């Protein structure tokens, strides 16, 4: 299991050092600094073995988190734990920075003591942790016995992510369907790979221990129900650019509150939600994706010192919808000396430091097209290596789910308290963003 956990600043100075196992000595701290942080070349692997000691590291801004072990640990677990550790720290004191870590080092030690015992990760749900570890130190002693046992039963209990006795005057929940659409397209417009990775993020402000049931237009469920099974559609969800009835989900994963065995057998998503914001599920689709934009590149080399670039973007969704924050990034060679740009819409600028022309458009409706052309002057070089021609990438945000996913219902049952599903105010929002949306040129 994890033998020790170190946090370093960008210089390699130790900010936090917690050793869990006897086989990890103080020299491990230095070994990582010397061999990884101060290493001359780029990091070639997130797992490094130095003198039979394995180091797992992740970086958050310029802070290094490293877990150390001498055993054959579950590597996936170690990384998941490091991410979780980051989440927990962020939940407690915001951004992970040198200053924040130094300011909260006592808290971090306390957390490390609680969520990692002898190198075994323990309950790391912030909801539960916050009941007994606070930024003001541990809650004072005057706790009643009931309170104490409530804490322990929550930390160890089946529903470790939610505490009892939550009360809201207004029962409300927000559902965000956040999708990022990824594309790799050949210069000829052939889709090399495309997929949507989506997340359903929920903010729940519900009283008691509500039992929730979530439904979407999952092809397997719809097919099973046949055509008559649409009665419980609350009709609150608005449809994006798709008129599809159901979508094929390649795979999905759930927050630990979801009863996986029930999903496996009935494909129904039922759970008792944590309080506040959390990620209910992640999913991935690859079929029938609506690609909101198409990029058509045209790069022509005029002699050795000039490059002509023309890029057309076409929006491909309902004309009534508006895409926002559109940004097209056209890479330029390293030896670019000057660029002249003409675009019909938006603003375009050559950014020498980023080796790219950045073209920004604030808004663009569906079924439109826009164009940019640029002349790139090149310095003559004797560098034999060809320019690698990085792909043209795009960023945007659209108000629909490119996968075609629709929320059909989210039902809330709380038998002990006197509110029903109809009393809960529900909000659903769809946001489609660009993931890695690239067209080769």
């Amino acid at each position: 299991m994890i033998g020790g956990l170190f946090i370093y600043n960008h210089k390699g100075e130790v900010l936090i050092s917690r050793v869990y196992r006897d086989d990890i000595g103080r020299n491990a701290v230095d070994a990582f600094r010397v061999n990884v942080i101060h290493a001359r070349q780029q990091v070639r692997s997130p797992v490094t073995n130095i003198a039979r000691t394995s180091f797992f590291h992740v970086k958050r801004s310029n802070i290094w988190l490293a877990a150390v072990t001498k055993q054959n640990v579950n590597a996936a677990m170690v990384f998941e734990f490091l991410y979780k550790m980051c989440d927990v720290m962020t939940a407690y004191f915001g951004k992970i920075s040198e200053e924040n870590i130094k300011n909260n080092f006592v808290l971090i030690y306390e957390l490390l003591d609680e969520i990692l015992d002898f190198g075994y990760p323990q309950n790391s749900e912030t909801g539960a942790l916050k009941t007994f570890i606070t930024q003001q130190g541990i809650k004072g002693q005057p706790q009643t016995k009931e309170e104490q046992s409530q804490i322990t039963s929550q930390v160890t209990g089946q529903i470790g992510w939610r505490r009892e006795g939550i009360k809201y005057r207004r029962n409300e929940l927000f559902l965000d369907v956040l999708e990022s659409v990824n594309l790799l397209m050949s210069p000829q417009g052939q889709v090399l790979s495309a997929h949507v990775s989506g997340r359903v993020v929920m903010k729940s402000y519900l009283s008691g221990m509500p039992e929730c049931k979530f439904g979407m237009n999952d092809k397997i469920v719809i097919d099973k129900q046949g055509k008559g099974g649409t009665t419980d559609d609350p009709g609150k969800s608005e449809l994006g650019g798709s008129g599809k009835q159901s979508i094929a989900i390649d795979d999905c994963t759930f927050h630990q509150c979801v009863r996986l065995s029930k999903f496996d057998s009935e494909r129904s998503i039922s759970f008792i939600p944590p309080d506040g914001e959390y990620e209910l599920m992640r999913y991935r689709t690859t079929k029938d994706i609506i690609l909101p934009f198409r990029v058509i590149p045209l790069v022509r080399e005029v002699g050795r010192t000039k490059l002509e670039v023309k890029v057309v973007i076409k929006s491909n969704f309902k004309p009534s919808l508006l895409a926002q924050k559109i940004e097209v990034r056209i890479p330029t060679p390293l030896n670019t000396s000057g660029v002249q740009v003409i675009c019909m819409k938006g603003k375009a600028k050559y950014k020498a430091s980023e080796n790219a022309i950045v073209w920004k458009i604030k808004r663009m409706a569906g079924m439109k097209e826009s164009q940019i052309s640029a002349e790139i002057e090149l310095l003559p070089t004797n560098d034999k290596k060809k320019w690698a021609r990085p792909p043209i990438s795009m960023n945007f945000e659209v108000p629909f789910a490119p996968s075609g996913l629709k929320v059909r219902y989210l039902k809330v049952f709380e038998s002990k308290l006197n509110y029903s599903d109809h009393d809960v105010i529900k909000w659903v929002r769809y946001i489609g963003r660009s993931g890695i949306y690239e067209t080769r040129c």
Partner: protein
Amino acid sequence: MTDSKYFTTTKKGEIFELKAELNSDKKEKKKEAVKKVIASMTVGKDVSALFPDVVNCMQTDNLELKKLVYLYLMNYAKSQPDMAIMAVNTFVKDCEDPNPLIRALAVRTMGCIRVDKITEYLCEPLRKCLKDEDPYVRKTAAVCVAKLHDINAQLVEDQGFLDTLKDLISDSNPMVVANAVAALSEIAESHPNSNLLDLNPQTINKLLTALNECTEWGQIFILDCLANYTPRDDRESQSICERVTPRLSHANSAVVLSAVKVLMKFMEMLPKDLDYYGTLLKKLAPPLVTLLSAEPELQYVALRNINLIVQKRPEILKHEMKVFFVKYNDPIYVKLEKLDIMIRLASQANIAQVLAELKEYATEVDVDFVRKAVRAIGRCAIKVEQSAERCVSTLLDLIQTKVNYVVQEAIVVIKDIFRKYPNKYESVIATLCENLDSLDEPEARAAMIWIVGEYAERIDNADELLESFLEGFHDESTQVQLQLLTAIVKLFLKKPTETQELVQQVLSLATQDSDNPDLRDRGYIYWRLLSTDPVAAKEVVLAEKPLISEETDLIEPTLLEELICHIGTLASVYHKPPSAFVEGSRGVQHRRLPPRAGSGESAESPDVGQSGTSEAPPAVIPSQGDLLGDLLNLDLAPPTATVPPVQPSMQMGAMDLLGGGLDSLMGDESDTLGGDIGGSPSMGAGLGAAPAAMPAALGGAPAIGGGLGDLFDLGGGVGMPTGSYVPPKTMWLPAMKAKGLEISGTFARRGGIIQMDLSLTNKAMSVMTDFAIQFNRNSFGLAPAGPLQVLTPLSPNQTIDVSLPLSTSGPVMKMEPLNNLQVAVKNNIDVFYFSCQYPLSLLFVEDGKMERQVFLATWKDIPNDNEAQFQIKDIHLNSDAASNKLQGSNIFTIAKRTVEGQDMLYQSIKLTNGIWVLAEMRVQTGNPNYTEMELSIKCRAPEVSQFVYQCYELVLKN
């Protein structure tokens, strides 16, 4: 509040100040001080001097302060064991605290204090905590047992904690179960043979129930533990799989991977015709693909594992090629792993896409990645035959980019393509040769040299190319040197006439000037092979090579099985068994996959994929396959005993019987002349130098001196031309090979004296002097009976004939073939080596006529196994003529019989070393042409029969 200020205290006398603060009466001040201590501890300052003061702060009801003190204790208790005892009371007291958080904190911290004296006090509180009413305390106590076991295993066993821990598996709280499982698994790992984790269907059921309810981490502990269980039969295996599959949808990648591990392992037991087996296979792909949308570090772990899974069960991901396409922004470690998997998944169906991608990657920036992409193109060519042509043209395109490392990598892979598809793409060689100068990496140079050697006959200037490499031979890496050696030998065997010098040069570089034993040994092997029997050498060196295997870099099946059992762990990331990187006994157990259940399939190897689509695992070819292959060929080559001793192509020059006689006459004169010269010190030195230059492996330097003196006089004997047959001179050492010295020669036996007739020609531009000759040990102990008499100097374009008398008293070593003779000739320029073969008739002595009675007795005495039968065709002689002719060569006819129209001649031969050879020759008298004779040879040393027969043939036909 800002705690960062504690990091900035670097004043002198700090410890002293802290001490005062720690002993302050004010709680707040105390706490501040402890925080400062912890901050100093973090940055690596030694604050152990404050131990008693810090421990004094332990008695507090402030939980935050208590925790800080505990943190300090855990760090320094070991260095101050006596003082650590002071803390025991507080721990014991805290373990009785009404607050479960405090009880747990105490037992948790106590386990981390690795002081023997303290562990004794720990036992009682721990026993209580294991049975605490609060699950939070129990789950902490469960881990504490593992801690205690790490400090003192015996104590844990003696105190019966292991049994209590086992009981906790049935606890009502899932987290207690999970921690108990984790603790037991760890303890069991250090007792490989104990039955500690007594997994039976009941406990498995409990674990599976807890699996649904515990935290994500607990699920990992339980799944990892389940993976060690071996179900009793396929039904149990299936039911566990069914209960584990829902975990594939967990958001935590580690839960998913651990579930994959359990499924991959238990799947082995399911009969393949089972519907569920297919369902399970289908269920595995989506979660594996989903792992690729995780953070890059996890992607890396996932990809390393997918690499294993793809090798084990290629069918799972065979349709998922696209998800492994590299993204521009992927970290390099993800890119490299994806590339690896892409090649594994490449098949005829997706090869076009893959190739297009690879070509794209080959223009990227990262050198390692580009190299790997180029290599991948080569691997595609080898894997998917239909794509080979496109791959080759893609590689050629890449070579045209002239990017140095791309060119080098491309040449390395093209070499492999040649090995897979010989005689198909050689048209590209010209393009490759153009880039010869830019190659600066050993692997690329070696590959290029291999190509030149392998296809020497198609490359006009192969010798020039190789020669250019030879100039800096000593600066090359071993890999290149070895390859160069082999390539030049190949070249020589293909174009022997022009490249003798070259091969001579490389052999001497490899054997004399190199310290590398591999190189030297290989040099000797080639040298010996070439000098002994060029035909055999040809068969060996130019033998058909085994084709390169389709799959490369596969993990060896037993290791793969073990790694599959370690999915998700570090072992699967390193692709090494845990024993390779874990110290001590932990993790040294080798895990194996369970055998498959079911009727006919039990005997089947678990490696065989579904429905017979995959074959037996292909053999792994190491990256230096070609080098090894060449050496292997040596071993595989058939024995060369049956090869005729005289190579037809070497037979040159007109028949010149008279010349031989003249030579011998001339030899007489030169002998007398040479008497003086032989005595000159320079000559002696020359002779001395020659043996020193002879390689040790060839049997050391023969001590000639003595024999030389004895026989010196004999050399002066008059050559008596008898009827003995003297074969025409053949070329022994071409000028190309010996810096302009050309030697041709033959052997003769004249009046009982063996002579070596040599023609030395100077084809160089400069004068040659100081000739000397030396023989290697040989089968019949032939040795020069005098020095080589050469009228020095030998001017350019001059030829002289020398006759060298030979004795048979030299050192003996059996040669292959028997009549092989290795010769070293020295002149003022260099030492040259060649080998020649002498007719055995040279050794037939004049008193070889056996008594009839003795003949009969001997004939009967020699076992029939030793009898060899030969046929001699196209002889136009009758038995008497033949008999006369043979007599001239000391083959004596003892008796003659005519039976049923056949003449039977009984003959005897005696060799110089006293071996008798008896022969029965049957001649068809009825046939006027006497075209056929049958020869039976009997000898106690049957290996000579073959050569005796050759003498018969030679004599009778000439």
